[in-house]
């Protein structure tokens, strides 16, 4: 695990130069989610790389200016990401409906570059389709579902009070949480979790003296990573637990948590 992290860290140069290929790029982007130093490095080095671009200016044909401006008129602009505001989705999952976050409505989100690039990559798909004149209502809805998850992750990772916690998972693996008390939400990821048979699944829970609420299933990921899952509406004193449950999840935990993290004040 540590060796793997170190290996990922050396990719910061190739990453900024877009000299990593698909799987490594996503591995590195996941690594950056939990590596503040990497985020700072990427930010600074990216500015340097942008200067390299400035050294290669070419004048576009004059006609392209109007053509581009006219194409822009036909493209609906994305709204800003508002911290704490999430469109309702996954409504009804064991009563864990996505709702608007309170308190922080109206403040601009600090949207870290990782998630922003993800969103931009999705935007690129849409723009390409528009350029090609493709009609794409189906594609739009898929994009918007992905964007909503990304913007939720971005809002949490970008908040000023984001803190990272890690914990060993009893049955093997490591859990990582990035939490914002201000946003009352966290992003949960895990690496190296024991593989489960199809009849079982990992489920997250918010546990408080008042009771236990289902907090979503942890989807198996690629390259030994699971998640990320966004857990919202944290209350003071909550603990986050992960249990192994019969697929596709239960309303109340039926086994002891394999990891339990106290979320602090």
């Amino acid at each position, binding site marked *: 695990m540590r060796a793997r992290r170190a290996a990922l860290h*050396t*990719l910061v*140069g*190739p990453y*900024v*130069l*877009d*000299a*990593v*290929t698909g799987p490594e790029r996503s591995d590195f982007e996941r690594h950056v989610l939990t590596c503040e130093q990497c985020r700072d490095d990427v*930010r*600074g*080095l*990216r*500015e*340097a*790389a*942008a*200067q*390299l*671009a*400035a*050294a*290669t*200016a*070419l*004048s*576009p*044909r004059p006609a*392209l*200016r109007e*053509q*581009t*401006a006219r*194409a*822009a*008129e036909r*493209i*609906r*602009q*994305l*709204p*800003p*990401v508002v911290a704490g505001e999430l469109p309702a989705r996954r409504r009804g999952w064991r009563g864990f409906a996505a709702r608007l976050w309170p308190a922080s409505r109206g403040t*601009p989100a*600090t*949207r*870290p*570059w990782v998630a*922003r*690039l993800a*969103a*931009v990559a999705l*935007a*690129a798909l*849409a*723009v*390409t389709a528009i*350029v090609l004149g493709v009609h794409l209502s189906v594609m739009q809805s898929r994009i918007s579902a992905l964007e909503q998850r990304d913007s939720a992750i971005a809002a949490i990772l*970008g908040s000023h009070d984001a803190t990272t916690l890690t914990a060993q998972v009893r049955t093997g693996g490591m859990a990582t949480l990035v939490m914002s008390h201000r946003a009352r939400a966290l992003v949960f990821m895990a690496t190296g979790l024991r593989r489960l048979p199809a009849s079982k699944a990992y489920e997250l829970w918010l546990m408080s003296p008042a009771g236990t609420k289902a907090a979503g299933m942890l989807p198996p990921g690629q390259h030994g990573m699971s998640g990320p899952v966004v857990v919202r509406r944290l209350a003071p004193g909550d603990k986050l637990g992960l249990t192994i449950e019969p697929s596709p999840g239960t309303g109340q935990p039926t086994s002891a948590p394999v990891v339990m993290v106290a979320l602090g004040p």
Partner: protein
Amino acid sequence: MLGEVAKGDDAAFRAVYDQAAPAVLGTVSRILRDPAQSEEVMQEVLLEVWRSSARFDSSVGSAKAWIMTLAHRRAVDRVRSEERAAARELRATSASIEYDEVSDAALASLEQERVRRCLGGLTDLQRQAVTLAYYGGYSYREVAQLLGVAVGTVKTRMRDGLIRLRDCLGVD
């Protein structure tokens, strides 16, 4: 300026176009080579800027870095997905000449001169690793192959080269 673009101001969009389009076109055409494809990608990048401008956040970097990151990645992704293996081989063999163009080309503006000077401050291996990746669109493994050095060496030279560039250019 991007703030105005985000409100749907087309005059602001034209102003952003004027500032960014030449650098975007220059960068993508270095990677893609084909003028028609380069123009297309340049337009796509600017339209992405239009579409996503409300999502730009100046606290995580400059507008220039944001736009150029979009442009570079898009060009690289396109070249990797579309270029046939044979064409890549051909390009790879001529790469040792290509990176020299960067320092030898007549770089007129002050900014270009500054970049050229800072590139000159890198070790040969750092400069080659950085420019082959950035201007050539090669992956670090390909760069290692082209330069005949270990993959690990290329990774660290890219990072160290960028750090030196950053410090020389005074950007952060």
